[in-house]
């Protein structure tokens, strides 16, 4: 894969950056020379990932309205703007997974608060910065992490699936509305990965049947590179 890809100077923010796919993206993008800020809820985990990767760590909860602007301010303040936003943080809803008729309303609310409202709020707060990047450099990008549960009706995945389905449609509409301003939106389904979130959902899945999050992160960085081909600063293709 493109382990040598070069994203020098690209300003990227990633939510849910201390575990699973988010952590793999922070590591990969920081190693590729991007300027990275990431968000997560736990102070010690944020500290650890920031120390390991050199990325800016921001403590906050995208499911909490009161945190959104403090997060947005720290992203743009630390990076001096924003070129790519990756909304990766997700809530499963009830764990263990539950049939909808057994799902507490609060668990559905939590999934919607993080996976739909949180993405909407943070993207809206950062839209001015993304649009400025697009005006000055040619393109900016929002990647919303999706799931096959957004499309397929898996029993037990009601809260998560409904929220990811709403996110997928939100992304599709925003893509239509913002493309004239060269702010592009992508929904990416990274596949079933060996991550803490997946372990919560399917505790008995064997890791060998699951995708490595590093593999999905590489695919996402490649999608980013392609989406930003018309930009001044972007990621360069892998060296053979």
């Amino acid at each position, binding site marked *: 894969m493109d382990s040598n890809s070069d994203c020098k100077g690209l300003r990227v923010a990633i939510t849910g950056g201390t575990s699973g796919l988010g952590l793999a993206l922070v590591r990969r993008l920081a190693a590729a020379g991007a300027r990275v800020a990431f968000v997560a809820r736990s102070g010690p985990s944020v500290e650890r990932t920031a120390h390991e990767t050199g990325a800016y760590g921001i403590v906050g909860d995208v499911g909490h309205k009161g945190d959104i602007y403090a997060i947005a*301010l*720290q992203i743009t*303040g630390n990076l*001096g703007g924003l070129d790519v936003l990756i909304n990766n943080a997700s809530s499963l809803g009830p764990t263990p997974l539950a049939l909808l008729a057994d799902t507490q309303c609060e668990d559905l609310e939590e999934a919607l608060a993080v996976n739909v409202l949180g993405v909407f709020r943070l993207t809206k707060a950062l839209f*001015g910065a993304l649009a400025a*990047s697009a005006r*000055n450099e040619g393109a900016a990008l929002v990647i919303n992490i999706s799931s096959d549960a957004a499309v397929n009706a898996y029993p037990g995945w009601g809260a998560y699936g409904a929220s990811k389905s709403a996110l997928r449609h939100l992304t599709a509409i925003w893509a239509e509305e913002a493309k004239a301003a060269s702010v592009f939106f992508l929904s990416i389904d990274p596949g079933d990965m060996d991550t803490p979130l997946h372990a919560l959902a399917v505790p008995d899945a064997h890791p060998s049947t699951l995708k490595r999050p590093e593999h999905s992160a590489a695919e996402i960085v490649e999608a980013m590179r392609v989406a930003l081909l018309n930009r001044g600063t972007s990621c360069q293709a892998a060296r053979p």
Partner: protein
Amino acid sequence: MIAAERAHREAAKLLIMDAQGHLRDVPRSRLARLFNPGDLVVANDAATLPASLSGTHLASGEPVEIRLVGWGSVGDPTRFVALAFGAGDHRTRTEDRVAPPSLSAGDRFSLGPLVATIERLLGHPRLVALNFLGKRETVLGGIARHGRPIQYAHVAEPLFLWDVWTRIAANPIAFEPPSAGFALDWHTLGAWRRRGIGFATLTHAVGISSTGDPVLDLQLPFDEPYRIPDATAAAINQAKSDGGRIIAVGTTVVRALVSAEGADGTVRAGEGIAIGRIGRQTRLRVVDAILTGVHQAGESHFELLRAFAEDAALSEISALAVMGGYRTHEFGDSMLIEYQGGAPLAGDHQDRSG
């Protein structure tokens, strides 16, 4: 949006004075249909810091409100010029605020999760150079969580960042909102794009509008840094050379563009410090019109408008704004003033599309 304004945003009004001095009163939503293909709208995309920090002056134990009002070094969240007030908050008129305790170099403030120290006094008992202790990102995080937007007594309810960031807000370097930009939304920008009207931005670190002290107020606006991107300078120079007009959204855009003007009348990209005072003597070579809030005679913002129009015309527009019940504060209504003596600018496509 703050509750009181939510209902008004749709109903906001726009008072237009065209190049011949004719006045028109239209809904602000009409902005989407104004201007002509080839014209370029230039706005300030600065986001606003939560620049009011409450805390304690440690030497005296007295409560203080610290307002960050200028950068020590642009974008460095550990060094600021700051204004100190004593006990109380924005609900007391700034002019009536209690003075801070006596301040000296070396004094410390405890401000929520942050500690700041006075580097030196800046020639006035409440104006100081302030340094925050700690790493940049830790300090920025502390300001983000503990700070509140600077606000004044005319809006009693507490403001949040979502109230003071315009729709185009990008980098957080302003101390108060570039409020003319509240008139813009993505619907309007899309309509302009479809009609061939350009849109570009610069970033200007808007300073504060009032210190509460008449002597200090005379120094306003403080030096305000700005940055003009290459793409914006190129768009302005291209529009001018093609005969398009430049519409500045807000006084900060006018100040930055006048400051960045070269001897040949073109605009230079890059960073600079905006010229403070613009007035009747200022020759506008780049900007053809200004979209701004409703200002009254005597304000520094109003003084800037004298570069666009004769006093008699400005008196007329002020009188009409008062009669029409135009709201003057930063969340209020808007005026569009074309440089008097230029050619007509405001093509209004109301009838064709309506």
